[in-house]
């Protein structure tokens, strides 16, 4: 159900909210169902929030009806996105592809796009994207919201609220890219196949080998039909950009003897150490998420096929050389996907997990094709992605840098609010933040 944030009403910054629905043009019929992958069910308490900022040319002179029109052909390709959840007799959740559609929100903002981006306020970004979650009425909760906020100068922010059960951030990015193709008039081809790319892990017959839960998950709940992760403390987000110069400086600092570390590994290592400094407990185990071969397909298939692995540092983080951490992140990650799937299937797909934030999580979205979303030939001038429903250990997303700054990176940190200021100080000390 929609949870409207109090900030929205109080500020009046984003106003004139109009809500409608957009569905597929073709009739799907009454028999199509989609069973989410096991990994999807493990991710069901997480939600991806993505914002694409476009200059005034992209949506210039377009009425709402004209904007909505290609969305109908676009959604033909994704019957599962337009469906709603139901439960089987055993309680396992599945999607009935009933053409109900995605929610479409229109809003206005009296600031210009440049003024907004100047503010660099990650909390205000919540106004540009709906704070959607599934439940408590699961059968009537849309899985995706699209918000179009028009700025005073004509620039537009496209806000995507995406349920992680459908797919990871790579899939969400491709979902939006497909909209760009629909607007450009390309034929999108057949609806995406609802078969799974990874074969479902079935529990073996005989005495169940009840192993320990994988390190990367945390059992929560039971949440019932309201799929939100309630944390003890409030989670806040902030983001900062890392210029190519800063990045190469960091990389060279980490590898004096020549072994080059990628941007993600370098940033993760440094931020890991910074967080360890401000936390009283040891964050020896961190979760690393990055794209797999399957998650990078461009044919529009939605899946939760990113690699979820853990890294276990059996040495003191605070005293170690960041390059050791970087090396660990690069080479020492253990893929836990099968373990997660087993843990979920053991109980018939019913348990409630969180993955992001169960342990401190670093998500590598460098290769995600966010900037490939082209609306009428215009690419976004800026993007912002975050995750909702993150656990208390926090999550760091490493995103591609702002357009025009190729080689740089954008980092989104989602942490308990009391850690934010301290981390910012640490990052400044490291030279990552100005």
């Amino acid at each position: 159900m929609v949870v409207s944030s109090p900030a929205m009403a109080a500020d009046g910054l984003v106003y004139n909210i109009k809500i409608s629905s957009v569905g597929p043009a073709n009739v799907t019929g009454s028999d199509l169902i989609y069973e989410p992958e096991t990994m999807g069910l493990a991710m069901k308490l997480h939600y991806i929030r993505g914002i694409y900022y476009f200059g005034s040319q992209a949506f210039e002179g377009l009425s709402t009806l004209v904007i909505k029109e290609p969305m109908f052909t676009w959604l033909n390709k994704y019957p599962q996105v337009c469906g709603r959840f139901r439960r089987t007799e055993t309680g396992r959740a599945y999607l009935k592809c009933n053409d109900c559609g995605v929610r479409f929100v229109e809003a206005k903002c009296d600031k210009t796009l440049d003024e907004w981006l100047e503010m660099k306020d990650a909390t205000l970004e919540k106004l540009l994207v709906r704070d959607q979650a599934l439940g408590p009425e699961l059968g009537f909760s849309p899985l995706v919201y699209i918000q179009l906020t028009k700025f005073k100068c004509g620039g537009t922010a496209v806000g995507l609220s995406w349920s992680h059960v459908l797919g990871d951030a790579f899939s969400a990015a491709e979902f939006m890219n497909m909209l760009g193709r629909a607007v450009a008039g390309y034929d999108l081809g057949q609806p995406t196949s609802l078969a799974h790319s990874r074969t479902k892990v079935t529990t073996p017959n005989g005495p169940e080998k009840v192993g320990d839960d994988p390190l990367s998950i945390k059992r929560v709940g039971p949440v019932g039909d309201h799929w939100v992760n309630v944390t003890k403390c409030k989670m806040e987000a902030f983001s900062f950009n890392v210029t190519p110069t800063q990045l190469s400086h960091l990389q060279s600092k980490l590898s004096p003897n020549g072994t080059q570390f990628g941007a993600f590994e370098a940033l993760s290592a440094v931020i890991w150490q910074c967080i360890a400094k401000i936390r009283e407990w040891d964050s020896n185990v961190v979760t690393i998420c990055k794209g797999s071969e399957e998650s990078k397909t461009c044919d529009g298939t939605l899946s939760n096929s990113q690699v979820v692995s853990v890294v276990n540092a059996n040495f003191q983080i605070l005293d170690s050389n960041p390059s050791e951490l970087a090396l660990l992140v690069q080479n020492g990650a253990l893929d836990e996907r099968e373990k997660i799937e087993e843990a979920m299937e053991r109980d018939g797909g019913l348990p409630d997990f969180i993955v992001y934030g169960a342990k401190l999580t670093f998500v590598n979205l460098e290769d995600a094709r966010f900037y490939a979303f082209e609306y009428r030939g215009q690419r976004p001038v800026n993007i912002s992605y975050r995750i909702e429903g993150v656990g208390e250990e926090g999550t760091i997303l490493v995103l591609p840098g702002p357009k025009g700054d190729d080689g740089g990176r954008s980092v989104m940190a989602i942490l308990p609010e009391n850690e934010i200021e301290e981390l910012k100080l640490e990052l400044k000390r490291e030279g990552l933040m100005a």
Partner: protein
Amino acid sequence: MAEIVPKFSSSVKLKYVKLGYQYLVNHIFTFFLIPIMLGVLLEVLRLGPEEILLFWNSLYFDLVQVLCSSFLLIIIATVYFMSKARSIYLVDFSCCKPPVTCRVPFSKFMEHSRLIHKGNTKSIDFQMRILERSGLGEETCVPPAMHYIPPTPTTGAARDEAEAVIFSAIDSLMEKTGIRPKNIDILIVNCSVFSPTPSLSAMVVNKYKLRSNIKSFNLSGMGCSAGLISIDLARDLLQVHHNSYALVISTEILTSPNYYKGSERAMLLPNCLFRMGAAAILLSNKWRDSARAKYKLLHVVRTHKGADDKAYRCVYEQEDNEGKVGINLSKDLMVIAGEALKSNITTIGPLVLPASEQLLFLFTLIGRKMFNPKWKPYIPDFKQAFEHFCIHAGGRAVIDELQKNLQLSAEHVEASRMTLHRFGNTSSSSLWYEMSYIEAKGRMKKGDRVWQIAFGSGFKCNSAVWKCNRTIKTPTDGPWQDCIDRYPVHIPEIVKL
């Protein structure tokens, strides 16, 4: 005898007896003429050729007599042709196919309903039950303003909807008929609920730059049967203005600031069933259209039961207990509709039924009055008078009721049911979607007679009878173009949502 007759009707023997009776009575003049012709022929043959020549020469042709007789014939012919009612032709008609962006599947309707009627579970459940049993499909359309949560029915949005559906229908009609806007002499627009200033007919005049001496009319508030009222009006006008074209637009605009926002169940019903649609019809009394026209108008019969209080209040716009305005449908609707239909049939029967049916009806009527009032009234078999039936797709109940009353087969009501499924209840334009269905299926042959029946608030029952002027070839362009192959579909009693 009448009690025994229904029992025997099912037997095959009596069926043939009835057939024989029908042939005899309907072609009675032929049966009388044949013996007379035979008699004359025999007499002529008997007389022989010479006697015939003698007989011919003995005839005396006086010039004055000949002239007077021929003048008399000419006068009689002239009087006949002058006083005969002009033939009204339907050149062509066109229905608007709403864009796919307006589609409202059941799931979307229900989800929006839940959000709009938050907390009012009774209203929500009621709407769901109605939708499940409605006979509507998943492709019906609702105007863009009604897709919002809550709906935003402003006057501007209503005008937008009107422009979208009406202009789409007119554009496609002009393309089909090749008519130019300046040739339109009469314009009639009927739309019951939405009646802005200036009127919708003025909107059409403005858009298409129609002539300044056009005879334009705008009928509002007349309900779902207004389409046939417009046809009747056009017919009457075409009797007075010769050599003219009349453009009739039938539509219902759903975007209305008077859209019902309350929770009274009898008033929520229209929201569930009414959908977007419009039809444009070109009528002509020009002689040269008699070749290219699709149909010829034979009869229009209008029945108004408004004198009866119950019928008058049957479909009534009023405020509910909370002061919200909506259209209240009374529980007696089907009964009143049945009575209105009976009235209408009683008037139209003598105009269209073959002599055999009329005699049977007369005999049973006399029998009931004079001999035994317990005799069942004879329901004439209208299937003998018409090949096609277009019953206003007001709802599943209406079609079921008419099918039962007129003893129609499933194929006869197929056009109505399928129109209800694909387009919903589009009010006055639904009859034209049904005609379009029959044409698209290739069932419309030259000489076929079509009966259009519409019901509407008032309470009115109006009928129109058309005769097909030329066989309509498939594939036809029209609203059914892309989906006719999927029809007919089986419509379950209850659709599980």
